[in-house]
């Protein structure tokens, strides 16, 4: 009886061990599958970057930067697009910065908790999900036609500002709410008013976070093609903008134009143009990372 009992126990134990090893094998397979998914995602990034680098690097020369667009691929350059992108940023950066930080300060420091504030917050998160091409339609109708700005630098810059506004608001709110209440109370205790506290304490303390968010938002704006294309940015421009009301082209628009041409040479300079665009974005991102690591205060 005792013998049979242990035999039965042994069998159960064996089955459990078998089951456990089977479950462990499934666990290993599952881990392998998930690891492969992660590796594949990173591999796609590498393939994309290597492909564009190898295709474009041979066509990367000084002429690409100092020449205007041309019907000959050898003469074609990005000068008008580079200048256009810089002009766009000169409009979009201050506008989106002021509006974004202003909204964030209002929501964090002044807004009463009521239905309107709630609506404001829902509205901002919904705006972040509106397709960029719809912002293009907004720019085309309001700025280009209704306000009579035409397809100009200022219309493009304003369209891009509204597009990236939600990103700046979210980043700025996070930075502002991270300013400790103690520091604000200390300021009030010294006799400072609310505005003085915000202007001299809250904004300077939150500035690294705000700037990081703004730079990331602007690097998003630099890469946007659809909204300014719909607004009416030209794809063939042989002059740099001379003022806010000049017509313009931008880096991604120029790349789009080259991509759409059948000749292989234009594909190659499109790749070279993409390298310059990506270098620009990399540069901006590293500034953002630098600011975050260097100036971010920890309390």
């Amino acid at each position, binding site marked *: 009886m005792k013998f049979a009992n242990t035999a039965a126990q042994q069998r159960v134990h064996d089955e459990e061990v078998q089951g456990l090893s089977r479950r462990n094998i499934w666990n290993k397979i599952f881990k392998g599958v998930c690891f492969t998914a992660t590796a594949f995602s990173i591999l796609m990034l590498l393939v994309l970057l290597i492909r*564009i680098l190898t*295709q474009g690097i041979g066509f990367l020369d000084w002429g690409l930067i100092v020449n205007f667009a041309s019907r000959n691929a050898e003469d074609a350059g990005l000068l008008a697009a580079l200048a256009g992108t810089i002009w766009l940023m000169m409009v979009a950066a201050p506008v989106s910065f002021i509006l974004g930080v202003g*909204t964030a300060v209002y929501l964090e420091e002044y807004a009463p908790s009521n239905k309107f504030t709630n609506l404001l917050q829902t509205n901002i998160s*919904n705006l972040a999900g509106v*397709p960029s091409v719809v*912002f293009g339609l907004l720019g085309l109708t309001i700025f280009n036609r209704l306000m009579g700005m035409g397809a100009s630098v200022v219309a493009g810059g304003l369209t891009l500002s509204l597009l990236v506004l939600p990103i700046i608001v979210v980043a700025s709110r996070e930075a502002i709410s991270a300013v400790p209440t103690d520091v604000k109370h200390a300021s009030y205790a010294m006799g400072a008013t609310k505005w003085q506290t915000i202007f001299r304490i809250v904004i300077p303390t939150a500035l690294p976070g705000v700037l990081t968010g703004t730079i990331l938002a602007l690097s998003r704006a630099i890469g946007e*093609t659809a909204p300014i294309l719909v607004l009416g940015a030209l794809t063939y421009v042989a002059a740099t903008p001379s003022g806010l009301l000049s017509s313009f082209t931008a880096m991604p628009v120029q790349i789009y134009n080259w991509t759409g041409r059948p000749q292989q040479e234009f*594909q190659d300079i499109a790749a070279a143009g993409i390298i310059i665009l990506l270098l620009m974005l990399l540069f901006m991102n590293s500034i953002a990372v630098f600011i975050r690591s260097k100036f971010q205060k920890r309390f």
Partner: protein
Amino acid sequence: MEDRSKLSVSERIEQRTKGSGSSSFTEKLMPVVFFICALISILTTVGIVFTLLFETVTFFSNVPFADFFASTEWYPFFSDPQYGIWPLVNGTLMIAGIAMLVAVPFGLGAAIYLSEYASEKVRKTVKPILEVLAGIPTIVYGFFALTFVTPILRSIIPGMDIYNALSPGIVVGVMIIPMIASLSEDAMSSVPNSIRQGAFALGATRMEVTVKVVMPAALSGIVASFVLGVSRAIGETMIVTVAGGASPTMTVDPTGAVQTMTAYIVQVTQGDAGYGTPIYYSIYAVGMTLFIFTLMMNLLAHYISRRFREDY
């Protein structure tokens, strides 16, 4: 002087505040300035809805409402133009469908690996790399789709068109992977460790903990990330404009050319459809449809993550 020393503290504060007139003016002005800044975002939404609605109404005064919804032919450039929205919706949904077939398994797999299996060090390296992937401009993805993915697919599938739905669909999916991975990882990481340890203590393997405990607990966040992914895929413009073609058809064949709602808007604004023509107004009707699609998706994602959130 003597008089002032007799004042209570609060009276003296009041006197000081009143004394500095410009300061109190600024105090009153600044909240208004900030409020106006905040109002701009509301005005932006109002502007979007107003323009879309206004021009869409103009469009429907030229083209019957029934044609737009009942017809399955979209030929705005013909001498006898047809404005049935369905071919564009079909193209859009096909691209979004293919994209999700790519993005969901890879994005979720990456999220599970990063949240449950990877060491802290690996996670801290891989997440920023995925974020870089998310920051690449979509025109670059479009170029990649047209000049790299399409030729490869064409050598595998003979008879495939240069412009097709499969190539941009796959690349839109790749573009969305980081978003789904990042949002799902956030949802899974926020499941408390004590719940995992409870399951481990009962003898569960890591896979069982992940599939039977962590994922159900994080389900609302994971599903919301999928819905947001669909919304992104529907609104994506440059990849489909560059690599998807301009043939609004009712096909379900992914090797053929299609046209999405976004690509149509770009096509018309790049062409010479004159201001005030029915074709010009049609981009607003299409834009309105697109806006409603993505708005519903975004609200749904918001609702799912709110309504079904687990409280620990």
